[in-house]
């Protein structure tokens, strides 16, 4: 087979607060809304992705944290109940997801071929992490496409941001190669926020937006700088600045998802679309789409 391609790549962060605010039937807690700027951003992303024909969604989530290699969900179906261990008051979600097992094994094989340590996760009792579930829900609440779910190898914590970037560059290229070999059209999602310093208290009403803002001006400036690189096609510069950004903004890019995404997209020099930006309990979150299919057709 061959001819597969990545049709879109997205930075699609996973604050469970957004699912909580939406009150979908899958989530137990109820809310009065909140975080509308980000939710409207996801509305725009969903509308954009609806125009893109695709067969599969590939997600790398910072909340499936693995220290011994990179892991890939390796059974055709996972169903269960996900409770956020940090915000259990907001996120208790019943999920039922299908895995594109062929592509999952293809990515696993390409990762091994690239010299990475990689493993298929085939324990049926495994509970899928809430980051994956949140990003999957926010991009497609009907769960209409099969997923490939990749863990976040914490090489940054073991070594450095630079080593993390090298490993995620390999994994991104391996992912791209496997997608192309599969003949499938894939949407690729990096499920991480940007600056990641939280407030340590929560309002009595969690969705009380009078309490919501970035934790510091420095965090805001870093987030805006990264977004500016994205929307002006400066992927290489963004990656060059990734070590400083990750350290100084305590950014969730430490999980490698954004580096992986940009390499899967072959370091795009075309402009990304910013669908939304907002804070969640102080952390900075951007919803960004690299419309690869438009770029390839010369319409971007």
């Amino acid at each position, binding site marked *: 087979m061959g001819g597969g391609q990545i049709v879109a790549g997205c930075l699609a962060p996973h604050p469970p607060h957004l699912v909580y605010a939406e009150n979908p039937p899958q989530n137990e807690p109820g809310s009065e809304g909140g975080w509308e700027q980000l939710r409207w951003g996801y509305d725009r992303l969903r509308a954009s992705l609806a125009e893109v024909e695709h067969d599969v969604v590939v997600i790398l989530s910072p909340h499936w944290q693995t220290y011994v290699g990179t892991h890939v969900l390796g059974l055709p179906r996972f169903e269960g109940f996900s409770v956020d261990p940090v915000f259990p008051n907001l996120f208790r979600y019943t999920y039922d997801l299908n895995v594109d097992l062929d592509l999952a094994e293809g990515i696993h094989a390409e990762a091994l071929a690239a010299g990475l340590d990689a493993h298929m996760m085939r324990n049926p009792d*495994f509970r899928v992490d809430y980051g994956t579930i949140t990003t999957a829900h926010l991009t497609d609440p009907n769960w209409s496409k099969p997923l490939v779910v990749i863990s976040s190898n914490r090489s940054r914590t073991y070594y450095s941001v630079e080593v993390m970037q090298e490993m995620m560059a390999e994994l991104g290229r391996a992912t791209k190669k496997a997608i192309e070999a599969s003949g499938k059209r894939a949407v690729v999602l990096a499920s991480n926020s940007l600056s990641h310093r939280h*407030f340590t208290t929560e309002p009595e009403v969690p969705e009380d937006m009078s309490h919501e803002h970035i934790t510091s001006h420095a965090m805001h400036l870093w987030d805006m700088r990264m977004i500016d690189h994205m929307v002006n096609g400066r992927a290489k510069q963004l990656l060059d600045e990734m070590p400083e950004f990750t350290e100084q903004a305590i950014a969730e890019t430490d999980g490698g998802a954004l580096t992986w995404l940009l390499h899967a997209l072959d370091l795009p020099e075309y402009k990304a679309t910013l669908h939304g930006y907002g804070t969640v309990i102080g952390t900075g979150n951007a919803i960004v789409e690299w419309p690869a299919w438009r770029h390839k057709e010369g319409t971007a």
Partner: protein
Amino acid sequence: MSVVASFVVPVHPHPLLVPEANEGYGRLRAAFEEAAARIEASGADLLVVYSTTWPSIIGHQIQADPNPVWNLVDHDFHDLGTMHYDFDIDADFAHAWRDAAERRNLTARTVNYHGFPIDVGSVVSLSLLNPGNRIPAVIVSSNVYANRAETTVLAKSCLDAAKAAGKKVAVVAAMSLSNRMFTRRIEPEDDRIHSLKDDEWNRKILQFLGDGRLEDVGQLSRTIHHQIRVQKVVAFKPMWFLSAMNGHRNDLTGEVLAYEALHGAGGAVVHLDPTSNGQGDKEYDEEDVEVFGGDRNVLDTETDTPDAEPLSAPAQAPTGGPALWDPVEGEDAINTDTAPKPVGAYPHARRVGDMLYLSGVGPRQPGTNAIPGGPIHDAEGRPLDYDIKAQTQAVVNNVERVLKEAGGSLENVVDVTSFLVDMDRDFAGYNEVWAATLGKVGPTRTTLAIRSLPTPIAVEMKVVAHLPQ
């Protein structure tokens, strides 16, 4: 004494799921079983687990589901199998602990949700240390942002709740020593500590713990974290918690039951018995903290938290009492920075010929104003549990500091008048510390019950010493 036994145990699933895969895993499993037997023999009626694999952000979370049941699969070691759990949690104690934490200014909440993902460290600990749910348990998270002060006060609030409920507590710190694993899969027979440097640090930590020097390890936590810890979200905090639960002691009776590699990380089972090892306590240099002054929302620019103190501010006892004064200077006055500041215009002591007359001495700590053993009430006057023996010992220490400034020691004390705010409650504990300290010197003594003292302390001493010039 609320804490009847303390344990350090590893967090990896191998001793639970595959003890037969490696002799070291088997020895850890056997050590878990020995620890379980010791917990049962200790008479503990509550098991408190502080788990480093349960990170939290909104303060500390305390498990309050009376019967959490689930199947847990490790994120890395999913191929080892599934960990089924079915635990009995003391929900009433969890709520009491939360309330006690809030009284000490901490953010804390209980969690009681079906399907809440109990972490690997807690599941391994409770499964192996408390088979069949012999005694009820409670689990607390490790806050990502918590510093030593917050972790210490978390432990003290646990002790508050335990004392109020009359619980005998076995405490468990679920933690790795060095936590660097091999980043590629290894065969069980090839398992070893990741590096010689990690192994050497681990053995040094275990030497301290084996000697019962728990507070010393707590004081070294930041150094240990920098030396042998991968910088994960949760730093090396459990020793702060464990030491505070044991009164910051360095004279426990320690025993290392096992130390082995777990995919490269250092895993140990250690028993710390509160019985003094007879070696005498050792000094430590970080302040004690009773109430969390807080770094809460330190980055929050909102104006609705004006009372939040900066992180670097010394912890203050909730005195609600008088302002502190610099000691009055004079030709015969004896004053020292090593004693707490007076609450009025007077010196620490005054010399008249060969006699030294000390002003009333309480347990407040110089510099921080903290009260060892805890204040007797909060800023609003609500009663708090406190430790009279710790307060009395602190009084004696302060007396000794003033005498030392004058060139003397406790040996010079000839007469003491002691004041207790609650004779019925405190006389025995006060008397016990007296016997071990001034009682050995032999001054005359008068003990009076009084209604209150200027600060929220339970004991004060008026001391006269004979100190020839």
